[in-house]
């Protein structure tokens, strides 16, 4: 179930934190475990785990078993949800704007020439 990217717990909120942005950046190079992420960051493993939980809830990362450990990877659907949101907002806004702009002009023309 995709999460609304701009709502509470969504992708934009998840990425508002610099540590979580660092995690996403590290995961762009491939899947990693909590320990491997913590090695490259100035925060503790439990802190990394907390950030990963928020990223997972926002739909940006997924967790999966690899051998005896769990690794995290970037989740394409989270990226898709952000894309869909942007298209939706601008698409909707531009269409509505154009209708109002066009119709208000036409109305004033009709008023002049009844």
């Amino acid at each position: 179930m995709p999460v609304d990217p701009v709502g509470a717990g969504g992708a934009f909120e998840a990425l508002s934190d610099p540590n979580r942005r660092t995690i996403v950046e590290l995961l762009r190079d491939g899947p990693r475990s909590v320990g491997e992420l913590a090695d490259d960051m100035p925060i503790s493993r439990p802190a990394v785990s907390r950030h990963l939980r928020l990223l997972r809830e926002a739909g940006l990362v997924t967790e999966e078993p690899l051998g005896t450990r769990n690794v995290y990877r970037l989740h394409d659907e989270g990226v898709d949800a952000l894309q869909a949101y942007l298209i939706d907002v601008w698409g909707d806004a531009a269409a509505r704007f154009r209708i109002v702009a066009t119709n208000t002009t036409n109305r004033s023309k009709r008023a002049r020439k009844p």
Partner: protein
Amino acid sequence: MIEPLELIFEIDCPPDHAFGVWTERFDQWWPRGHSVSGDPVEIVLEPRAGGRIYERTADGTEIDWGEVTVWQPPERLAYLWHIRRDRADATDVELTFSEAGDGTTRLRILHSGWERLGAGADEWRNANRGGWNGLLPHFTSFLDSKET
């Protein structure tokens, strides 16, 4: 540097009218669902450089969405845009209204500053480019059908 999103289309009215509708009637056409409260009683774009863009909710709370950075009617308008995000994560929206002949306007919307949204921004941006191209023909046919 992450390339901005660009959207260009023509409107059947002169630039000064298009600029006026975008700003003075922002409340009338901006999709209400794309807000913080989901159902604001008013959406305001203050018509000047430094002007606030905000929504007012039923209980009178004002929630900032952005800030006007360029106010040059009827050609140029730009604002910071951080709806439902911290101001520090604001992206940039820039609009150019130009004369396109026969009393029509060519509107160019440039949405940039994605790098401020973090490491994933590049991927969203690139993925989104295909989305825009696919979207425009759909737009045009939708709008044409409304106009005739």
